[in-house]
């Protein structure tokens, strides 16, 4: 190897090493999930915690009801209290199913349409039945469900049920 070739090799190799080092540092910095925030799903009411959502006795069988609650939200370095909501439906057997308020298509907030007797998303017209199943529209899956628990007639909403 002559002198020129040696110099060119060193220039190329060191340049590559430096570029790779900076690129790796940047990739870790930008793409890795922050340490204290393991993957969260959209519509998770309180980042995995249980929230009191009201008296079960106030629910009517088969009639979806929107419940509003306060939740703690951690947003990077800020922790704030803000309002959240969920749709709950009481079944004939007394159990309660709770849905994330976000449409499974692109995350818009849907509403219950009395005329349509279904949940209707205003963005792209996805429709879901009272049990969360897809009726029509571009939604890729049924409504996401939250875990529920009833204690002393009080409904508690928990983390999102993991998607299969």
């Amino acid at each position, binding site marked *: 190897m002559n002198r020129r070739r040696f110099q060119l090799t*060193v220039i190329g190799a060191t340049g590559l090493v430096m570029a790779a080092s900076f690129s790796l540092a940047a990739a870790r910095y930008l793409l890795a999930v922050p340490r204290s925030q393991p993957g969260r799903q959209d519509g998770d009411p309180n980042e995995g915690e*249980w929230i009191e959502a009201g008296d079960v006795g106030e629910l009517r069988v088969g009639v979806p009801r929107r419940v509003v609650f306060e939740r703690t939200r951690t947003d990077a*370095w800020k922790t704030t209290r803000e309002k959240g909501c969920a749709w709950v439906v009481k079944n004939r057997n007394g159990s309660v199913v709770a849905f994330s308020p976000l449409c499974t298509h692109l995350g818009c907030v849907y509403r219950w349409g009395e005329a349509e007797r279904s949940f209707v998303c205003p963005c792209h017209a996805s429709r879901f039945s009272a049990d969360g199943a897809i009726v029509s529209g571009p939604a890729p899956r049924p409504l996401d469900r939250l875990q529920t628990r009833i204690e002393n007639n009080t409904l508690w909403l928990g983390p999102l049920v993991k998607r299969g």
Partner: protein
Amino acid sequence: MSRWRGKASRVAASLDETTGVLTAARRFLDHDIPASAGWPQVFGSIALFLFLTQAFTGLLLALNYAPTPSDSYNSARYIMREVTGGALVRSLHHWGASFMVVVVAMHMAQVFLYGAYKKPRQATWIAGVVLLLITLAYGLTGYLLPGDARAYWGTVVTTRIAAQTPLAGGLVARLLGADNGAVGAVTFTRFYAAHVILLPLLTVLLVGAHLALVRRHGIARAPGASPGTRKFFPGQIFKDTVAIFVTFAALFLVASLVRAPLGYPADPADDTFVPRPEWYFLFLFQLLKLFPGWLEPFATVVLPSTAVVVLFLLPFLDRKPVLRWSHRAASVMALCLVAAGWTWLTVAAVRGTPASGGTEATPAEWRRLTPEQLAGLAYFQSDGCGACHNLDDWRPFSLEAIARRKGDGWLAAHFSHPRGSAPPGGAGRPQQDGPKFPALSAFLRTLPSLPAGAPLRVPQPVLAGALLFRGRGCEVCHAANGSGGKIGPALNGLAARRTREWVERHFENPQSLSPGSMMPAYHFTVPERDALVSFLFALPDGAP
């Protein structure tokens, strides 16, 4: 292989035909430089590399940083503690600034010694002096951005010095967003805008001008060197690359081993913090001490301005064409004197800094913890929580993040059933109860506002004393750090008011020293008494 080479050549030719970039690059690389050029000429390239490093790491930081008084510290802390690789990126940026100052100084010294500021290179030198001032301005404006005590107080002093500018002091302070010496939201946004927009724009313009001028006049020959030329590429590029790589390796090593400092949050009411500027400004800080009272403007304005003016006018003050050092003894001596003076002032400033001044490891922050919070720390240690939870760093579960996100109910459930976070009132009864859980929760809530490792610096006697203070009912009557009853006097500042002996006698017989006092007599063992006094005497003078 040759087919790929052929394709690459055709692509390169097409690219060059459209943009001319390869022709320009060849012209840039294939020019003659003095045969005497070599390792002394690498500092300019290193400075350019460091600027690019600062720009890159600065951009990464800006993607996670919030430049407001209320969010700057927390976002900096978020970068350091929670963003993967955040501590490395910030440390690269922090130490890169120090490396930059050193390299720029060495580059200027080399140019000075080679007489490369003389005709016809006056404009090149002047552009370089402006770049030096811009480098220092980066240091000044960036210093505020972490939002910790060091940043805040350092900037208060800086803006007040700027306000001393004769005739225009008020205007300068207003421009800096620090009217009436107050550092606030406007100061933050102005310093941030200067640091990430104005100064980088100026840097790009001036570096471009500087390089264009260097190309125009060529690299200066070494004093006394014989004529003769060689090609810039690959010889000088090789030396530049090696020097840059050594700098890169040193920077990564330092940044990996020594984290950029981040003290406790700025507190305008904190009277314990000792402000200090960054190390390369310490000489100015020390200079102030040599000019007290009415002479102060000499140190803050006259001398620094004079130095800057001399630097600018140097090519016009020293017009002799002579380059050899043997004929420029005065110039070389002046450089040595400046270096020696800077070193002497800096060392004096370092030696004169109190141990608790300007560092992250000040004891003040744990002294403000309430007895309940200290008791929580004591329970943390005694109940073996440290087996899984490390207070010094995030490993394996960030207590700081948990403290910010989880409510007291979750924490209490976790303390009693660590293997699964039961919902409130969920499966199983709590296994323990009593004062420990609220105290543990109270302690955990302090973590977001404490510097890393601060809980580890609380002396054991202080913890034992806090437990005793609560256990013996002292806080029913007496407040410590704002927590407790108001029947008896608050105990902050006790160390300044009473001696140790007085306090010990007071425990035994309060009425003998405080006639009419309702306090009952306490009989402690010697270790108990020592621990309690340690706790009481650790309380700062002012309650929060």
